């Protein structure tokens, strides 16, 4: 073990005070001891995610198969073991990484690590065909909500031609291509390896014990196969005009509208300015512009907001509204007016200060539990930030000016948009 403590800055939230450790199996661990926490958070990250899978969605399928059988245990044995440990464990693949995140009582730490290690080292990927079939049914169920259809179509179109567009409908289309368990096995063997792994741990366990247990159990380097190297860029499609993506559903009570653009990656210098712009436009909640203008003043919606999601190689910024179908054009007009305002007029100083305070204050809320802390830091690092980048957030937010926001608004929203709408066919 080579402890390599990262000194925390004094202004930083206590929740983010971690030590960065290198384990003897090649893995990196972000460690934080929290004496107040009732449970422990064990979050394991593996670089790559959808960006390195051989077939779109293959990593998602492999995630599920981790729980379906190992050399020593059947699916049912695994389920009973997980429930007996009350191990809240989930596997998931995101654009830039795969993860196995868990929370557990301290008394069950060792047994949980032993089990998680078995899943990562010795899965047989049994039930390959059955899981594919189950995924079809689950996706169909998800798509039975018109809002999900529109959301799926928006992301799929925006990131078309890149590995960032692996949404449910893409997965559905590529499931028939996943006809070889060998491809899944190769992916499994290459991803879940210590040198490709980041451990983010928080809870009431002393450091020496945590290091000893993680070195003992997680995971062993079983093969000589190298982990695929994630790409350094993705080539985004350029849109020459607005693209409309319609999803007719005649018994839909509302029109569900997503409108959005490509946006800067997490490490882009405009990240913080866009984060603030999003807060002002529709991210803050009840006091954001979209909410007060389209909901409070015009009664056009119950749910209206904007979102900015940033990843390692790109991002997306979008607006959503669910509205009575006959309101569709008024809502799109409302979107246009609010976006144009941000491009034309600097945000007033008071509103900017409030948005900054919102972002800084809200951090305590999403970092309240050890689980949230471990997951937040782990995901940030997987998407290209360092722990000190994360610590710098307050200074970086404070430095953003109204001119920065106006420039970022123009950079993003002067481009053609992707607009996905689910609703009755007569309004599409």
């Amino acid at each position, binding site marked *: 073990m080579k402890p390599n403590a990262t000194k925390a800055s004094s202004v930083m*939230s*206590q*929740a983010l005070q971690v030590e960065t450790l290198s384990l003897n199996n090649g893995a990196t661990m972000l460690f934080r001891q929290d004496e*107040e*926490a*009732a*449970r422990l958070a064990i979050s394991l990250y593996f670089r790559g995610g959808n960006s390195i899978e051989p077939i779109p969605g293959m990593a998602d399928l492999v995630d599920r198969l981790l*729980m379906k059988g190992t050399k020593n245990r059947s699916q*049912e044995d695994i*389920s*009973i073991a*997980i*429930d*007996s440990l*009350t191990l*809240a464990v989930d596997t998931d693949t995101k654009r830039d990484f795969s993860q196995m995140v868990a929370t557990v*009582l301290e008394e069950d730490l060792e047994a949980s690590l032993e089990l998680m290690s078995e899943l990562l080292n010795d899965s047989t990927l049994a039930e390959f065909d*059955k899981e594919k*079939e*189950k995924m079809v*049914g*689950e996706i*169909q*169920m998800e798509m*039975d*909500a018109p*809002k999900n259809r529109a959301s799926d179509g928006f992301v799929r179109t925006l990131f078309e031609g890149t590995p960032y567009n692996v949404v449910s409908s893409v997965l559905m289309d590529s499931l028939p291509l996943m006809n070889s368990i060998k491809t899944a096995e190769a992916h499994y063997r290459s991803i879940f390896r210590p040198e490709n792994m980041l451990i983010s741990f928080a809870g009431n366990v002393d450091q020496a014990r945590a290091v000893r247990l993680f070195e003992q159990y997680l995971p062993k380097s079983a093969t000589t196969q190298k982990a695929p190297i994630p790409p350094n860029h993705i080539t985004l499609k350029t849109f020459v005009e607005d693209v409309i993506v319609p999803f007719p*559903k*005649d*018994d*839909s*009570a*509302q029109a*569900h509208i997503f409108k959005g653009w490509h946006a800067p990656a997490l490490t882009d210098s405009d990240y913080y300015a866009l984060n603030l712009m999003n807060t002002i436009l529709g991210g803050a*909640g*009840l*006091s*954001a512009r979209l909410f007060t203008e389209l*909901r*409070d003043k015009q*009664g*056009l*919606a*119950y*749910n209206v907001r904007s979102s900015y999601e940033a990843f390692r190689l790109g991002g997306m910024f979008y607006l959503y509204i669910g*509205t*009575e179908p*006959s309101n569709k054009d008024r809502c799109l007009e409302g979107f246009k007016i609010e976006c144009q305002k941000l491009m034309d007029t600097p945000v007033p100083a008071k509103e900017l*200060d*409030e948005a900054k305070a*919102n972002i*800084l*204050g*809200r*951090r*305590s*809320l999403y970092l*309240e*539990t050890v*689980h949230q802390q471990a997951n937040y830091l782990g995901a940030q690092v997987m998407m290209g930030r360092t722990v000190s980048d994360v610590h710098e957030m307050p200074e970086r937010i404070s430095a953003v000016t109204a001119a920065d926001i106006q420039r970022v608004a123009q950079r993003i929203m002067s481009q053609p948009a992707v607009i996905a709408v689910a609703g009755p066919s007569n309004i599409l």
Partner: protein
Amino acid sequence: MSTKQARIPIPFCKEPAYQLSYDNGFTLYFVPKRGEVFNINTWVKTGSIHEDDQNNGVSHFLEHLMFKGTERFKPGEFDRAMESMGAVINAATWKDFTFYYITGPKDSAGNNFATALDMHADMLLHSTIPDGEVGPVYNPDDPNYSGAKRERSVVIEEIGMRNDQPWTKIYNAVNLMMYPDAHPYRRDVIGTRQIIGTIPREDIIRYYRTWYSPKNMTTIVVGDFDLETLEAQVLKCFNFDDVKRHGVSEGSLLEKAPAIPAPNGNRYQTLTGEYATQFLISGFHGPSPNDLEETIALDVVSYVLGEGRSSRLTQELLEKPEKPIFNALSTGQSVYKLGNVFYIQGNFSDISPEEAQKLVWQEVEKLCGPSPITQDEFSRAVKAMKVDFAETSETASSIAESLGESVVTVGDISHYAHYLEALTHVTLEKVNEVARKYLRSERAYTAVMIPEESVSDN
């Protein structure tokens, strides 16, 4: 200042909760919790339980309108003040309750908390519900209406949003079958488009004055505070002497449920829609929440039947069949003041609803008959339920919400505070007895959503 003070241990919380009861009927709970986050919750013991066919939806509509300003603060000022400190604010209405919350970051000077408490109390006690914010009365089904649309339309849009959720639609169908005409739980909490479009502002204000009284309100604070200072702050802000009731008398809580007759008619309903998959919910009347032992026993049943990864429905119908049948299956008990409800819900693709129901029933009947819950299953469930309490103790907001739900269902926090202790006394025999008592096929109410023929032909 308080007329009665008690300290009550809370599962997995380092310090016991303070219960402070006052002469006017108002109750304050304070749970000391270290950390950077505070939560303020106020629970009003009214929801659709106190509505009728004329004003159905008024509790929820009022909840929206409470955010529209007071004599001291203009509409929007509260939202802006809270969100500019990073706080999350919202409210929710259901059958037994309406509650309002603020989760915020603590600052060293205590200004965030002081401001949040002041504005929260002011909103609850002194909302003005301005006419311009409610919006003019209108017929929401009139396509030619071109007048102003304000909060009435927001709620009507919320009704539309719920109509695009297939689970919500069949839940409502089950709910309607489960209760007789005279029962207040029969109605959908959100009301109807027509009522929300036309209910006069005066009716809403009268409802507000009737139910938002000290006796019917409980405030819960969780955070890193000193009791004496906190109590003084709360009492200063929640000064009910200043509230103008305009002669409206305080509402009496409905405590006794109208009798629910044994089912003799409609217990099955089929809905259709433009869907690729099919949805099913079955509901059963459960025990009173005051019967903690039976409530806990039925929670154990739910865990074993359909909650854990190793649960019966998950293993037998989701995981083991060679050809997948169900896309999702789960169970749960909802705790309501006038009687709990046990639900089974599932989604499936390629079989008929009758077959789906039959498969689920086979598992329920096995559990209630030849294959009762085993000691191993029971032990796993008990441990899982303990860990649920550990999880709840991790955030200020989940502690406050759990205490609040207890207050509105059984009158105080005992349901939550005593649950784990009572769980240690629940026996496997009791759990199996409760399963047989409540999960009877002749007492199930089921609604299914199936694809319209035109869709299934495609």
